[in-house]
């Protein structure tokens, strides 16, 4: 019985969350530091996981398996493949930045009751989310995954509804109502998705008799477990619906702009860069592996939805007047790419999609956090309230531009690699889809540059004339992200090496092979 590394990776933030929440009201700063340390510790553990993981090794590694709820056929089973490792690493990596970026977001304005401790709560909730996300990345037991997939909604819900931007164009009252609307919308959308998935999970149990991903996949492979076509399709739809809400995929996306718009920038990053990844990740791990045939059956529709998401999200981003909502719609477009890559059923597509999850996490974090710093300075989310910022705050503007360029996936920055892989992967199997998707890169340039032009360039507006440039803490948040963006853009091999074997496995589990190029086909 070796050291339960994966459990530790999730347990540390969980314990940290409890500890942070327990910090007395007066010791606010202590809570912040505690949270930061815990998140760093988690990062360290994740690094160990990354090191201990052997790309050439078994399908699932560092596995743990304990009896849990025998009556439901549920075991506490953890294990990571390349895809999971990458995403665990991403999560553990982003949380410290999120904590750091949100350093002052939860300082109580008015001292309410002695026992009202928003700051402690804020950081505790973030850590709780981290713990749950990590477990759901590591879980190889469908039920275990489901539990945390659902449970993470609650802390997210409090993060969205409980903490908003300091100043708000319509005043605090309107802000709080909008916030709680956004929070409820987020929760209900995902809860409905989750409950429908619950029905499918139960159905899966009735069919399979247990929840172990590995066992079910094996049983399906060697024919001991037969699933009627209709059953498989229904179950697939049940699962996919939940993931499509989480991802989010058009037309189930409308909760995201509200949530990201109302939440503070760090929380918005938490949503789109970390939590939503669970949805796309789950498509790759559960939908494809548990229901390969149904996945193939549904592919055309899903591809269309993904394409719509790409174009639609981008167009709406162009039409936004609110910085954060713009980023949100941009994310919707990007999630379209990820889904496209997953269901293109080619190794390029799926490796690209995985890579895309990581890169999108980093790039959105960069863009959104800088946007958050910007908003916190001016106290408005409206693009129209800015102008000429680059004159007064060149560094802020510069990092913002880099974040933007990453979002429009400029070659040399990380997102380009993944986006191009997805495009190629799609194109090789569905040329038309690939071509339509490339429209996305033009539109991405449009909304990003328009955003940059309206906020950063032009004559300096009086309101921003006194705006300070990035502070040390903020620079400490952004700089590493930028470095990472460039590094992974120039040298993504480390990630692809981890991801490729897992994708190869998934491809074989779904009985897929890459289409051959014409010249070889000719031979």
């Amino acid at each position: 019985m070796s050291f339960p590394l994966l459990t530790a990776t999730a347990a540390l933030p969980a314990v940290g969350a409890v500890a942070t929440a327990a910090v007395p009201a007066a010791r606010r700063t202590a809570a912040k530091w505690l949270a930061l340390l815990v998140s760093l510790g988690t990062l360290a553990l994740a690094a160990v996981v990354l090191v201990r993981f052997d790309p050439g090794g078994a399908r699932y590694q560092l596995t743990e398996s304990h009896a849990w709820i025998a009556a439901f056929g549920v075991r506490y089973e953890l294990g990571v493949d390349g895809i999971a490792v990458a995403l665990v690493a991403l999560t553990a990596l982003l949380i410290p930045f999120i904590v750091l970026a949100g350093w002052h977001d939860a300082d109580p304005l008015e001292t309410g009751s002695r026992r009202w401790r928003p700051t402690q709560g804020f950081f505790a909730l973030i850590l709780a989310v981290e713990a749950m996300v990590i477990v759901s990345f590591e879980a190889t037991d469908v039920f275990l995954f489901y539990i945390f997939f659902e449970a993470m909604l609650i802390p997210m819900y409090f993060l969205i509804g409980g903490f908003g931007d300091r100043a708000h164009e319509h005043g605090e009252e309107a802000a709080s109502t909008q916030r709680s609307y956004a929070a409820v919308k987020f929760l209900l959308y995902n809860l409905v998705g989750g409950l429908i998935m619950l029905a499918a999970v139960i159905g899966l149990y009735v069919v399979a008799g247990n929840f172990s991903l590995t066992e079910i996949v094996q049983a399906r492979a060697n024919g001991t477990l037969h699933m009627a076509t209709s059953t498989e399709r229904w179950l697939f739809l049940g699962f996919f619906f939940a993931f499509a809400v989480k991802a989010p995929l058009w037309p189930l996306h409308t909760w995201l702009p509200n949530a990201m718009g109302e939440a503070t920038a760090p929380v918005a990053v938490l949503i789109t860069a970390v939590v939503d990844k669970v949805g796309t990740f789950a498509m790759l791990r559960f939908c494809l592996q548990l229901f390969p045939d149904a996945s193939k059956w549904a592919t055309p529709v899903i591809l269309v939805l993904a394409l719509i998401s790409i174009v639609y999200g981008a167009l709406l981003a162009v039409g936004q007047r609110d910085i954060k909502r713009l980023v949100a719609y941009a994310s919707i477009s990007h999630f379209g790419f990820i889904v496209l890559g997953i269901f293109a059923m080619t190794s390029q597509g799926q490796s690209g999609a995985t890579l895309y999850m990581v890169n999108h996490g980093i790039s959105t974090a960069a863009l959104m956090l800088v946007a958050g710093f910007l908003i916190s300075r001016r106290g408005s989310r409206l693009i129209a309230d800015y102008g000429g910022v680059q004159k007064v705050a060149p560094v802020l503007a510069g990092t913002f531009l880099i974040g933007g360029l990453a979002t429009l996936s400029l070659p040399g920055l990380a997102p380009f690699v993944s986006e191009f892989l997805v495009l190629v992967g799609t194109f090789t199997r569905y040329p038309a889809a690939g071509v339509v998707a490339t429209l996305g890169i033009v539109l991405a340039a449009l909304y990003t540059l328009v955003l940059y032009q309206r906020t950063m360039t032009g004559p300096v507006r009086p309101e921003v004339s006194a705006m300070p440039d990035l502070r040390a803490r903020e620079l400490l948040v952004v700089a590493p992200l930028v470095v990472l963006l460039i590094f992974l853009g120039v040298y993504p091999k480390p990630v692809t090496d981890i991801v490729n074997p897992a994708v190869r496995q998934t491809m074989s589990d779904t009985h897929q092979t890459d289409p051959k190029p014409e010249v070889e086909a000719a031979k």
Partner: protein
Amino acid sequence: MENLIALLIAAPLLGAAVLLVGGRRLDAVGHWIGTLLSTASFVIGAVLFVGLLGRSADDRTLIQHLYTWIPVESFQADVTFRLDQLSMTFVLLITGVGSLIHLYSVGYMEHDERRRRFFGYLNLFLAAMLLLVLADNYLLLYVGWEGVGLASYLLIGFWQHKPSAATAAKKAFLVNRVGDMGLSIAIMLMFTTFGSFAFGPVFGHVGGTSEGRLTAIGLMLLLAACGKSAQVPLQSWLGDAMEGPTPVSALIHAATMVTAGVYLIVRSSAIFNAAPDAQLVVTVVGGVTLLFGAIVGCAKDDIKKALAGSTMSQIGYMVLAAGLGPIGYVFAIMHLVTHGFFKAGLFLGAGSVMHGMNDEVDMRRYGGLRKYMPITFITFGLGYLAIIGFPGLSGFFSKDKIIEAAFAKGGTEGWILGGAALVGAALTAFYMTRVMLMTFFGEERWRTGSGAAADGHDGHGEPHPHESPGIMTIPMMVLAVGSVFAGFFFNLGDRFLHWLEPVTGHSEGHSPVSALTVTGATMVCLVVGVAVAWAQYGRKPVPAAAPRGSLLTRAARRDLLQDDFNHVVLVRGGEHLTRSLVYVDHTLVDGVVNGTAASFGGLSGRLRRLQNGFARSYAVSMFGGAALLVAATLLMRAV
């Protein structure tokens, strides 16, 4: 020796990194660092050039494999550089002209507090451009391709506080992105066709693939080229790009970046040779653009915009040549190089003029400047002669060859293209002469007294034209020398031809008309053009306020209405589309969900009323329930 190749790129890249990250503490020396590093890159280039000359003609290709970039199963993208005669030519042009313009900028940007960043961007551009021409596979080329796009975006919008500049920058990037779409699709096509997108394998397998595929790839590459090289229909951005500082216009939008399209086509010669339809389209695009640009150039009063139009047209020549296939490739590149010299020179000249005229760009407020800025006048004049193809100067050789080749294409299209090229020559002569006359000859319209500048433009009052400092004039002189002798030098014993032939291949076309006739015709056109221009702008004084002009003129002033089209169709249409989509998203997609929630609420409210508080009505519901229960149970047994 191939290990030096990476250094070519590394030097300016380093410069960019240092200058951009370094911060204010480098403000004092930043420009020198930039210049130094670009020059270093030039030196390395020269060394490599010498090295190449030292080798036999057929193994002048150096490959440097740095590392594997994106490996996913069969998709293998490497960071590998290829230095052959073609890329060597570009390296020298880029680094050479680039270094000169760095030098020039030291003076030009002297009073700009963000000069350090300017040099950072310039270095970034050099690095990207070198990557573009040195890449050994199309994906890496794509990186450079977008890199130069980024640099040009940053530099066009360098004076970001000017909304016009910011807009122009955005426009340039967007239009280029459309082109980039073409390039990325081309790469995907290559991958699906050849299973690779590295030059070697792709060109190697051209034989075994259907012409349809190749044509598709070719057209996609052409789309990319159109975007980058401002060819119709994606030319609209170049004019606005003149918002950038003049050195930028000289380097990026005249000498180097805009010619990347030509490089792409020539580099992909293998594909185009096998796809005649694609080639035809290329020639058509080239022909149309060379006329289009020329016409626009004739109408503009803004000196830089006039030159921009000319650039467009000259690149049209190159694209046309490139489209002609083996008979044209070499001359396309040759014209590209010579054009690099004289057009850069002209732009620097224009910059120098503006420098002396309080950044005035309207040629109608120039006039008689030759005695105030003699050096500028001479260098500019030489560039002028070169571009119009004055016998003996660079332009003459390169352009003449292209026109010949055009006729040599044979058949009707041969005649049409050749004709177009000739007309273009005439127009070139016309608009360049116009620029020359309006700027350096005639009365001094800038004097406030002459009422020309009565509406005191940008408040400077009357300008005091003066010659620019040496640091600016020296580069101009160097370029002038280039524009005078380059052509002759290249053509001496077909040096250039032999140099490039191993890469691009070459074949003599059988022209229906003899080379001499062509040359003659060209001369005639030239004379005609100059004469007309003289008649219009030399003999009678130029009106300070632009006359209404003919319909064509007015259209030409507005880039032949192309911008209006864009504005109405794309911009307006796009705005409407997005706005309506936002509405749809809010009312429909969101509405459905909220609607369902609301309907549940309504239902709840209605059901709630049943709970009316009267015990007896509860009893009724129980009684009814019981009755139903009994009835249902009986029914179940019945069925």
